[in-house]
């Protein structure tokens, strides 16, 4: 009997999500709502993919924002400066980001945790420096304006009011499916083993560095695509995308949503994007609130909001068999 219920529950939730996804763009009319929706979905892609490496795999990866930003800049530069056909820049962005991500993480992951954080962080700042120095190509601190509309087989997304919304949703759904598949695969389990019991996992023959580099590269694919969409949608590529503030906002989505849960950051991304935009008039205080949220979450609810599901007894029993997040109390051994 129980088995039937969980299967029904899972199928039901998938149906609900797809239904909402299909209907939402038609319901949320009005520029502001549409805008918020697209942005929050793109951030959800970025945040959940960051969670894959930071939360799920426990890698001290602080270059993730760079993947997003590089994706947007490759899209902008390729189409604006080099006249690359507008759908090709997507592929180009993925290739560039995966290559850069793979290279930097292969080098950085030779070191222990804290150094990985520093080097990956430095990469993000390096991107800003590069953008500011190669002004002619990148538009410098001002950024590039006039990124052409995303075009697929001649269909311009900008011409149809809901097109970008659907495109973003498709990206989020595909990305989540991919991540769920990864997480439940041998590869995903090896990542968790490396996170919690590294010496043992390595002793059992799991190649630590290779798995982690692959995880970073995998997570960078949807992220770079999100960056492309971002550039095409906003028609602008700016260095703000590499800023400390955005990093903090995305970090808060990962933590508040629930590090290591993948789904949690998605929900948190939507809530926090809407929240911070809604509190627009507070200006800088918004970021102070986000910062306080991060510390409070780490202190009092380390598993994030998603861990609140464990309040439901049926779910707690199921989750006891699953993998705990790196910040939940049980993970420390």
């Amino acid at each position, binding site marked *: 009997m129980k088995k039937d219920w969980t299967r029904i529950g899972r199928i039901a939730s998938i149906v609900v999500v797809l239904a909402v996804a299909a209907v939402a763009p038609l319901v949320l009319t009005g520029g502001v709502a549409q805008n918020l929706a697209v942005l929050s979905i793109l951030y959800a892609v970025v945040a959940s993919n960051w969670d894959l490496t930071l939360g799920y795999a*426990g890698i*001290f990866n602080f270059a993730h924002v760079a993947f997003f930003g590089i994706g947007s800049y490759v899209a902008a530069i390729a189409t604006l400066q080099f006249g690359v056909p507008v759908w090709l820049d997507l592929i180009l962005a993925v290739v560039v980001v995966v290559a850069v991500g793979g290279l*930097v993480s292969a*080098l*950085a992951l*030779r*070191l*222990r*945790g*804290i*150094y990985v*954080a*520093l*080097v990956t*962080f*430095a*990469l993000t*700042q*390096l991107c800003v*420096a*590069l953008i*500011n*120095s190669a*002004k002619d190509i990148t538009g410098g601190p001002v950024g590039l304006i006039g990124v052409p509309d995303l075009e697929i087989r001649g269909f311009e997304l900008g011409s149809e009011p809901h097109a970008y919304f659907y495109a973003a949703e498709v990206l989020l759904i595909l990305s989540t499916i991919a991540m769920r598949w990864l997480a439940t695969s041998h590869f995903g389990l090896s990542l968790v083993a490396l996170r919690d019991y590294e010496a043992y996992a390595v002793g059992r023959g799991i190649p630590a560095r290779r798995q982690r580099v692959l995880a970073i590269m995998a997570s960078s694919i949807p992220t770079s695509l999100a960056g492309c969409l971002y550039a095409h949608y906003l028609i602008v590529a700016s260095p703000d995308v590499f800023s*400390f*503030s955005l*990093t*903090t906002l995305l*970090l*808060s989505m990962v*933590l508040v949503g629930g590090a290591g849960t993948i789904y949690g950051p998605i929900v948190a991304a939507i809530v926090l994007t809407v929240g911070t935009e809604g509190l627009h008039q507070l*200006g*800088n*205080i918004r*970021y*102070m609130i*986000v*910062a*306080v949220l*991060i*510390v409070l979450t*780490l*202190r009092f609810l380390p598993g994030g909001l998603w861990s609140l599901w464990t309040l439901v007894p049926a779910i707690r029993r199921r989750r006891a068999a699953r993998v705990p997040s*790196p*910040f939940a109390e049980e*993970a*420390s*051994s």
Partner: protein
Amino acid sequence: MGAIIVSGLVSGALYALVAAGLSLIWGSLGVFNFAHGVLLMTGAYAAWWLSSPDGLGLGLGIGIVGALAFMVVLGFVVYLLLVRPWIGKANAELAVIMTTIAGSIFLQNLILEIFGGRYKTIDQVVTGTVAIGGTTIQAQNLLVIILAPVLLIAMWLFLTRNRTGLAIRAVAQNQDAAQLFGIGVERIYIATFAVSAVLAGVAGILLGGLFNISPDMGTDPLLRAFVVVVFGGLGSLPGTILGAYAIGMIEAFSSYYIGIYWTPVVLFVVLIGVLVVRPTGLMGRPT
């Protein structure tokens, strides 16, 4: 050439002060304080607000002393709120990175709210220029060049002769043994944070006298400090200081010959290069 060397020495001196603070905390507490850059900035603002006629107008002397006293308190607060609750937990390293990132965003925006984003200036401690060996340099630059090594030597004496300084090193090397000597570990943590915060504050005040102060003035020095500690190795104070001057020099030469915009790229390439050859940094320890 003289100007380049001066610039390198000044940068090196400031980076040494900043990186030394980070290294001390890492050694004793085993965590990395991302909020260090913001501490630098807050020290500068504290000095400004106390000394400037737009603030309390109490003059530079009181401004500096007051700011440094404030840094001790701020260091304690950062420790209490952002570090202490996670010390000893399995994920302490990663958690403290995140809490201190959050803390730096909080403080930065707080300062932005209170003081606004426009640049301010602190009075220089010494004004005018000095001619040395054919080069004219700002007196404040000379002050920095001389003061930093003096402070670093003072710190070395503190760590090798002073009861608390020795205890800081002991806690970094073997916490159990330190406790069995009667050392109160929490007190040492607080002392380490206080010293680190004061060093950051000094760097901020010196930097503020050379350039303008702004809420994000701590970001670049912090990032340079990242490169320095990876370069010189986090566990080693001598390595960190050597690394700081090396990075300062590289930066100065690179800025002159390659240009100021490409210098961060050069530094990053140097960093990656060092890591390929020596994964633990110049003098770092494997653990």
